[in-house]
């Protein structure tokens, strides 16, 4: 696995998907929409550029070039690289959370068994990551993209998923189990994306379900 992940992302040179191509004029849009479009393009450019360079080596110039906006625009909308990261991570997180909440509702959380719920949520997560791998990587490999901001990223994930996982952990399980398991869950996902194999992410569902259910067999389980 490690060898496959040593290459730069296969799509690293490609423009962000489903966005206006870099440099495309946004003239003609009302000012508020133009700002929203520039912001969206900057966040997408950041998510696409950071895996291939690493947070430390990424400059605002790299993002500007990919997004096709002026350097001045970046600083009108953000306070710099760290702020760009924070905004990109927050957007990716909110998007994934919306997607997972829909999956929980669709699975009928009250009526579903814990294993069925885990499988439904994982399937939705992997589909979402396949559709938007750059954004998924921001969540799955915050160490890669965030550098010094990794702590804040992990905290956000732990706060979102920790209580639910904690309730499903076996009696006497280590307190850090949700944190470790979330880290473990994201490692293979990040690996596939970095290897340019994001299309194969849904195939991870059975293995990841087994892994998660082994860590969290369900409410009231004993070791």
């Amino acid at each position, binding site marked *: *696995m*490690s*060898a496959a*992940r*040593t*290459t*730069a992302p296969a799509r690293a040179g490609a423009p962000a998907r489903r966005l206006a191509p870099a440099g495309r004029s946004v003239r003609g849009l009302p000012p508020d929409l133009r700002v929203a479009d520039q912001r969206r393009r900057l966040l997408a450019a950041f998510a696409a550029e950071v895996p*291939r*360079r*690493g*947070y*430390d*080596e990424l400059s605002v110039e790299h993002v500007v070039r990919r997004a096709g906006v002026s350097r001045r625009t970046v600083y009108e909308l953000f306070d710099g690289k760290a702020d760009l990261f924070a905004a990109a991570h927050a957007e990716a997180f909110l998007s994934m959370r919306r997607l997972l909440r829909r999956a929980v509702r669709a699975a009928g959380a009250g009526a579903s068994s814990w294993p069925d719920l885990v499988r439904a949520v994982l399937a939705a997560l992997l589909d979402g990551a396949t559709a938007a791998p750059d954004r998924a990587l921001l969540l799955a*490999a915050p*160490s*890669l*993209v*965030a*550098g*010094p901001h*990794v*702590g804040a990223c*992990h905290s956000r994930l732990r706060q979102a998923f920790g209580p639910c996982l904690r309730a499903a952990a*076996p009696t*006497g*399980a*280590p*307190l*850090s*189990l949700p*944190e*470790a*398991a*979330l*880290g*473990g*869950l*994201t*490692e*293979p996902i990040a*690996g596939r994306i*970095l290897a340019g194999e994001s299309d194969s992410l849904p195939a*991870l569902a*059975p*293995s*990841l379900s*087994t*892994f998660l259910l*082994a*860590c969290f067999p369900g409410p009231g389980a004993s*070791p």
Partner: protein
Amino acid sequence: LTAPLPREPGFPACFEAALARLRFAAESAYAEDDAATEPERLAAALRAVFEFASRNPSAAWLLTGGALAHGPYGNARYQELLGAAAGVLASLRAERPEAASLPAMTECALLGGLATLLARRLQAGAAEELQVLAPEAIEFVLTPYLGALEARRLAGE
């Protein structure tokens, strides 16, 4: 070594030096007790990794979060490190029939979880927490292979 060359020429030397020290600590702990079983040896090696990280936070950060933030070269070396560790961990699949049928990505996930625990404390400047955290981390890693009770027993030794 298949990693692409980094832009910062000093990084590989620092990374390799840190890795050599970590390997020495882990391998020494692994080999210390001739009479120990394989799970006991691996538990000792994992304990040594956490002790190393708590005493050498800068080196440990370089091998985890720092490497990943460094771009393709750091990421590649990080993955090679995880891949080597996964090969060692996979020896535990022989411990129980249930362990033999674990999904192929199990080692990758377990080590990713371990790295998460380490990186977050190191990033937060809380390296002193790592030695306390070590038993929980060892239990997390050994449970799929040995079962929770045996993993907890070994983690607490």
